[in-house]
């Protein structure tokens, strides 16, 4: 019972902090909008629509959703580093709840932040000509949810080993840019050279982007169920690694 209330406690804290630091939400939405409006329009103006199967801006929209949660969810992990710095983590570690619960509480906190951003981006999408049905809206949320859990777990894993926010940013950067650029968020997969396709196909985020794109605008490379299975597996593995890392975490 106390494990459940402990998980709720950690979620409650993350949520309070999130609602209190609205600048975090606003700034996390400015970047995707710039990608959509400036990059999407700019590159779209020289692209033959047929290459991506439609309007380029529309094409990258699902990729931009993935990108937004990728960045904000991974860098959510930096808060565990701050918790160490401000000694809040001590308070949590000395409490009678398991490390596993601490990890899940944190994951839920980060996932909530991410989901709020996804919903805002989805609403904004309607201004860019995206149409949702109830089914596609729900399916998008499910895909985003699983992806966010996986990425938040990566962030928390990195954070559990780091003692400085600077160190976290450095490692986080190494991890996040390959995940983003090799995901097909900005380009279609079908005409890639073989060497690049190899890298793209081993990136779990690729399947999240492909699934989201399939659901939102009906363009996809793999079957939606295949995409779903891969990211479920990915999220599961990351949770296992994250839980293990939290158990090993030292102050």
């Amino acid at each position, binding site marked *: *019972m*106390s494990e459940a*209330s*402990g998980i*709720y*406690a*950690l979620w*409650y*804290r993350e949520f*309070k*902090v999130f609602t*209190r*630091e609205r600048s975090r939400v606003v700034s996390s939405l400015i970047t995707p909008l710039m990608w959509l409006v400036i990059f999407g329009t700019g590159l779209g103006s020289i692209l033959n629509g047929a290459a991506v199967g439609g309007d380029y801006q529309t094409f990258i929209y699902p990729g931009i959703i993935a990108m937004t949660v990728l960045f904000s969810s991974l860098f959510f992990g930096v808060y565990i580093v701050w918790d160490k710095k*401000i*000694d*809040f*983590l*001590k*308070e*949590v*570690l*000395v*409490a*009678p*709840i*398991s490390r596993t619960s601490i990890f899940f509480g944190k994951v839920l906190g980060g996932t909530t932040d991410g989901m709020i951003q996804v919903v805002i981006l989805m609403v904004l999408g309607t201004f860019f000509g995206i149409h949702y049905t109830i089914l596609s809206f729900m399916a998008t949320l499910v895909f985003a949810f699983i992806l966010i859990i996986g990425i938040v777990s990566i962030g928390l894993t990195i954070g559990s080993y780091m003692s400085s926010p600077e160190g976290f940013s450095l490692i986080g950067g190494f991890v996040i840019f390959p995940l983003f650029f090799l995901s097909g968020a900005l380009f279609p997969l079908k005409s890639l050279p073989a060497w690049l396709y190899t890298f793209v196909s081993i990136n779990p985020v690729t399947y999240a982007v492909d699934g989201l794109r399939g659901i939102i605008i009906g363009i996809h490379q793999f079957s939606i169920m295949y995409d779903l299975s891969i990211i479920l597996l990915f999220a599961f593995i990351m949770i296992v690694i994250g839980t293990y890392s939290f158990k090993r975490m030292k*102050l």
Partner: protein
Amino acid sequence: MADAIEAKELTKKFGNLTAVNKISFKIREGEIFGLLGPNGAGKTTTLSMFATLVHPTSGEAYVGGHSIIHEQGAVRKSIGFVFQDPSSDDTLSGRENLYLHALLYGVNLTDINSKIDSVLSLVDLKDKQRVLVKNYSGGMRRRLELARGLLHEPKILFLDEPTLGLDPQTREHMWEYIKELSSKKGVTIIVTTHYMEEAEQLCDRIAIIDHGEIKVLDTPANLRRNVGGDIVTLRFSGKPNVAKLKKLKFIRKTEIKGSTVRLTVYNSAVHLQDILKAAGKVEAVESRSPTMNDVFLHYTGKEIRESGDEAEGGAMERIMHYRANSHR
């Protein structure tokens, strides 16, 4: 009476550094127990081991009857910990921090609000409960942490330097809270400090710890008594002549440092006149009962003092100054 804590040859090494070296002692239920020592003596490490935050290199300890190695969950349930550094979240309000803590410790949902109210009034933070902690003063923050440590009604409470950096007035308030807790609620309290005065005022028993070892463990009164008398310090204008002083039987110990002589005297109130007669002309004389600082000096051979520290303020006030050359 049962033991709240029992340490058996508890040891912690960090690489080559032995922070805590085979300490063994028992803390009785309901007592206020002080761990006194300079910074880096191993106090915080010892507490962290009791709280299962640091794993001992060897040895064992039982907290509330539970092993700190094999029953970490049970140990954590029975303790409260007020850390040396503030560990509340400053983007949350005082009340929210307490709410969070109550949830973490699995306090019954129906009792949470009433318990938060009662600890808030105990530490006088009721009217500031909705204020974000980042806008709290240092003293308020400390009080909040104390409230938090009490919220889940632990049987054993660890206070790591609870009054560090507090102004004297707030510090005395804090002592009152701590004493009240012990007397009214029967909480066992383990407090670390490097303030002599604090240890003396608060604690039923004190362990003096230095270089990770317990030098002595006793009640403040006994510790004082063992020093062997009052401290009389004489300052001479030139080189001190102690030949005559050394003949006096009631002087137990004579130490010369430059132009000052420090005497350990049996019953100085009665013998001060004789001492001054034997000493001849002195510039200043000071007589006082032994402080914990003298106790520390006695057992470790060095002073416990921080640079620019006001910790001994209370003791200084008690010092009687007598100017031999005064015209008054």
